[in-house]
């Protein structure tokens, strides 16, 4: 059997080679199908790998709670708020939370000055727990400490982008920046995190929460965000559920009332993204299925022509002793090889295309081809070849030797 396979492969290759152009055109359908799937898969996989890494660095088991006001209420001027009371309540009563921190956004101007330089950035009032929840660690200096909060110290921890924008020295420690008319001493510089989809993760200034409160003033109307890090082994869904229940009762919501807050998990964001990728994959899969089908029909068509063309040859081979399986194997292997070669060319082309696309879009992650895509596309194109080769090969193998020999 192995011998038959070897010999059939040899003669199939020489036959493919003998009709070079025709073979190429025959398999073009497969080439295009595989190339397009590999191009798309390599781009989306590259993106997905990159986003996965980014989420991991954001702190994948963190929960963010923000206030939420339905549009109707906003028109009426009723704004939902999360307050320090909510924070204290959750800290005291919710289970499964390792860290919890408020975030207070600077309400109006987020202008920062250093010397004659002015920049705009995101200014957050928060506490020391922020670094563990969001995985932001200082590169130089220190992070916010609990005592900073207690004593409303006027200090700031800045992101790398802010240092750059303000022309602060490489080591910005002990420099003073101006925020909302007050002077803040820089005590720490955060590690650089890069960009997600063009948004810099390094453009922020962190100040103690209580300091921020005192700047914002009017404490009854402050609206904070609460970030929590889950403790080891805590179930995200359970925690989200508990937090929701606690907040609803704290806000005196009746059953049937809409939540006036939103709980977001990093997992949710990732799930949303995975859903999109999944949908793209399904759509691409459908397109590829169709193009491989069309490619397969093209191969079958040419193989049928080839059988007719070589009827006399088949007759000769049968006259000198070829059995059914010899002829069958030769045509089947020829179809499979043709298709597989198309798959390989498509693979190379698709990878080239994917690389070209991702390298031409700025800030786009590099293309990645997962092994399963390679195995799948080659396996599938070989399978298509065999599937659509069966009919022509069976036709060839069943030819009657005298009829075939007489064929003109």
């Amino acid at each position, binding site marked *: 059997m192995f011998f038959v396979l070897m010999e059939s492969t040899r003669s199939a290759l020489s036959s493919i080679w003998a009709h070079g152009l025709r073979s190429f055109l025959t398999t073009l359908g497969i080439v295009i199908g595989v190339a397009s799937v590999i191009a798309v898969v390599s781009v989306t996989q590259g993106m997905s790998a990159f986003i996965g890494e980014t989420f991991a660095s954001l702190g994948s088991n963190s929960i963010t709670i923000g206030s939420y006001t339905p549009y109707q209420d906003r028109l009426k001027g009723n704004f939902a708020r999360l307050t320090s009371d909510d924070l204290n309540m959750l800290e005291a009563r919710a289970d499964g939370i390792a860290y919890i921190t408020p975030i207070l956004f600077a309400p109006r101007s987020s202008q920062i000055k250093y010397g004659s330089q002015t920049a705009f950035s995101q200014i957050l009032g928060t506490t020391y727990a922020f670094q563990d929840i969001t995985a932001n660690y200082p590169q130089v200096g220190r992070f916010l400490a609990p005592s900073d909060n207690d004593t409303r110290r006027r200090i700031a921890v800045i992101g790398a982008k802010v240092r750059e924008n303000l022309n602060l020295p490489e080591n910005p420690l002990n420099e003073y920046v101006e925020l909302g008319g007050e002077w803040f001493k820089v005590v720490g510089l955060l590690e650089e995190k890069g960009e997600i989809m063009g948004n810099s993760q390094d453009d922020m200034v962190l100040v103690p929460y209580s300091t921020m409160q005192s700047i914002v003033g009017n404490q009854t109307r402050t609206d904070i965000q609460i970030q929590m890090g889950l403790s080891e082994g805590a179930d995200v869904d359970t925690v989200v559920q508990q937090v929701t229940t606690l907040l609803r009762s704290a806000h005196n919501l009746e059953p049937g009332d809409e939540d006036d807050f939103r709980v977001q998990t990093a997992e949710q964001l990732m799930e949303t993204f995975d859903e999109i990728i999944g949908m793209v994959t399904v759509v691409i899969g459908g397109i590829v299925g169709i193009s491989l089908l069309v490619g397969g029909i093209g191969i079958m068509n040419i193989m049928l022509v080839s059988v007719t063309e070589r009827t006399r040859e088949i007759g000769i*081979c049968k006259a*000198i*002793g070829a059995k*059914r399986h010899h002829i069958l194997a030769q045509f089947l292997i020829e179809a499979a090889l043709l298709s597989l070669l198309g798959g390989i060319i498509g693979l190379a082309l698709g990878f080239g295309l994917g690389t070209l696309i991702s390298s031409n879009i700025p800030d786009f992650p590099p293309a990645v081809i997962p092994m399963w895509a390679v195995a799948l596309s080659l396996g599938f194109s070989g399978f298509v070849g065999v599937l659509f080769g069966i009919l022509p090969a069976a036709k060839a193998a069943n030819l009657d030797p005298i009829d075939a*020999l007489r064929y003109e």
Partner: protein
Amino acid sequence: MSLIRLHNIKKYYEMGSQVVKALDGIDVSISPNEYVAFIGSSGSGKSTMLNILGCLDSPTEGSYHLNGTNVESLSQNELSEVRNREIGFIFQSFNLLPRANALQNVMQPLVYRAIGRTERKRLASEALHRVGLGSRMDHLPNQLSGGQRQRVAIARALVTEPSILLADEPTGNLDSRTSIEIMQLFDELHSEGHTLIIVTHEDEIAEHCHRVIEMKDGRIHKDDHAEQLVEPA
């Protein structure tokens, strides 16, 4: 013991409502190392005869024993096996594989015997040397003259060391000088001990053979060794 024994072979074709009797009761025996010519006008049934002898076609009726095997009971694959081992075909139109060179053409029947490539090459090159084409082994059929192509075909028939060589109008497409050369080759093969059966309509070709069987309307009209018909098996 005869190599070929045909008993009451009939081959009928249906052409519309008419039945054409291509062969109508053939009894013939051929012994090893005979040199036989089947002659007759076209339509006499000699080509059908050859197809049946070569196991390419099966008779409607009658029995055919080849080298002791009853051929009529064999399956298509077993018939392929018999064609490969027992029979060497030489055709009027050579029937070489157009994309394979002379050596590859001669090697082809050995592929179906699962003989390794090196051994195949050795045997094929020997056969080509035997027919005087040792220097043209890498030529494609269309780079060879008619006579050379027929030599390649003869080498292909010889390489499997068959019991019988069957030639169907082997000189039909050749000029007279080349025909003589080919017939000389056949004479030599016969003297080396091969059994040859040639179908022809040319008397000069038939003259080379030691036994001439003339066919007419699907029957044997004349057989100059008729006594062999009654030879016991």
